[in-house]
């Protein structure tokens, strides 16, 4: 039995999932992200985005220079909601 090539560790997306997405016409990074879930796990694409973008471009016959990252949205690291919900400190410090 052939092993799985994991392209996105967080969401268990495999290389054959990407091939399947490309075959269905979802060959751009944002499309493949929506179809396979790549880059939507705890790491938010930190580990997988570049390799997936490159693989999709090559599989679809597009030059790598056209590859774009998916949109970066806050927060870039997981934080507890309590951190955002804490009270404001009225005082103001310097560096």
């Amino acid at each position: 039995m052939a092993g799985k090539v994991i392209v996105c560790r967080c969401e268990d997306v495999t290389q054959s999932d990407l091939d399947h997405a490309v075959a269905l016409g979802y060959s751009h990074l944002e499309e493949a992200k929506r179809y396979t879930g790549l880059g939507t796990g705890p790491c938010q694409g930190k580990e997988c985005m570049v390799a997936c973008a490159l693989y999709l471009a090559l599989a679809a016959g597009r030059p790598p220079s056209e590859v774009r990252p998916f949109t970066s949205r806050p927060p870039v690291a997981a934080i507890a909601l309590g951190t955002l919900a804490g009270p404001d400190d009225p005082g103001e410090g310097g560096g």
Partner: protein
Amino acid sequence: MPRTPDCALEFEGESVSAVAGEPVAVSLFAAGVKVLSRSIKYHRPRSFFCLAGHCGACLMRIDGQPNIKACRTLASEGMKVERQNAFPSGGLDVLAAADFFFPKGMDHHTMFTAPRAVNTLMQKVVRQLGGLGRLPDPSPEPQELPAGERLRVDVAVVGAGPAGLAAAIACAAPGRRVVVFDEGDRAGGSLLSHPAHGVAAADRLAAEARAAGVAIRCRASAIAWYPEDEGGLLAVAEQPEGGGLPRLVRVTAARYVYATGGYDVNALFEDNDRPGIFAARAVGTMLIRHGVLAGARPVVLGDGPYAAALCEALAAAGCKVMPIDGVRERVVAARGRAWVSGVDVQSDGKTGPVTRKIACDAVAVATLPAPASELARQHGAEVAFRPEGGGFAVLTDGNGATRTPGVHACGDVCGFRGVLAARLHGSEVGRAIARAFARPGEGA
């Protein structure tokens, strides 16, 4: 560096010895715990990969809190550590049958969608398979939320690696408030994982920065640029020294410098997620910071200067190192299940590809780190795909200025360049910022 355990964790009811202050992930690995987590869909066994808080492979339940990064949590006496989303246990997870039943993978778009009764049943099964962790243990009294902080500075630098520290040193001046934020528990960034530099070099550079009047705030993770709030602010989540919920620091600066470095990236081959397959910098960090060998017979995959430095350091520590350059010889598959036991390596023979099997007990993957460009992009910087730079590099002019006024970037986030070149780049960018402050009407 000899490792002397001085405290004990409680891992799923068993006592595991640890060095207080080292990452829990390292304690568990050193104690022989091979599987730290199970993957979300196929329940494949996983250990940590990057040891830098980025890859998401080491989420565990720690002291009753779900989804805590074991690589960023420092061991202390009596800390309670458990694996999550596995049944009946992380070591033996029967849900891993999914990995065998679906060798080609599951397509959730089309699988068991009809008839309705099957679909309803399947949804119940999938809910058992999926998800990450369970809700936190209820706390006996309401938790007090940490108060936020408002901080106005002249220069805010994100990342206390060689580039960020060098930039801060170069633009520091009496009366100028320069602050560097770093997500790690110690300043130094990529210096801390590099056998040729290490903790001593990191401490020297950090001491130089402090002597120049730079404030360094560790365990302070820059999480976002919010352009709409208070005229634009950098949000930083800062963990108090004694632990507890991070507080929010709202930072406004005349100039922002993104020196966020790069993320470790895995190579693509069959079963490339097996425990024991680490980012090379994780192997380096374990060796030089924590005195733990990733394996006795490690494969080091990569042909760059970092791979060479790591091979040398591992050999000096007594390992039987097997370098695979990844170009002439490529790793095509990993062997082993709960831990890597070997790799299949392919090279070009006279009549076609030749495959050989190598037995090993660890793999260090030294691919180019991918520029950590998210924050700079949120702050309006432009990126371009640079294969030789590891991915999406932030575009700057010769002075490190991005297309957004007041926003700068330096080091590996502008395309991977390595420790020494990143430090030089940081210095150049810092000097350019200092010159801009010196011009009347500019800067603050």
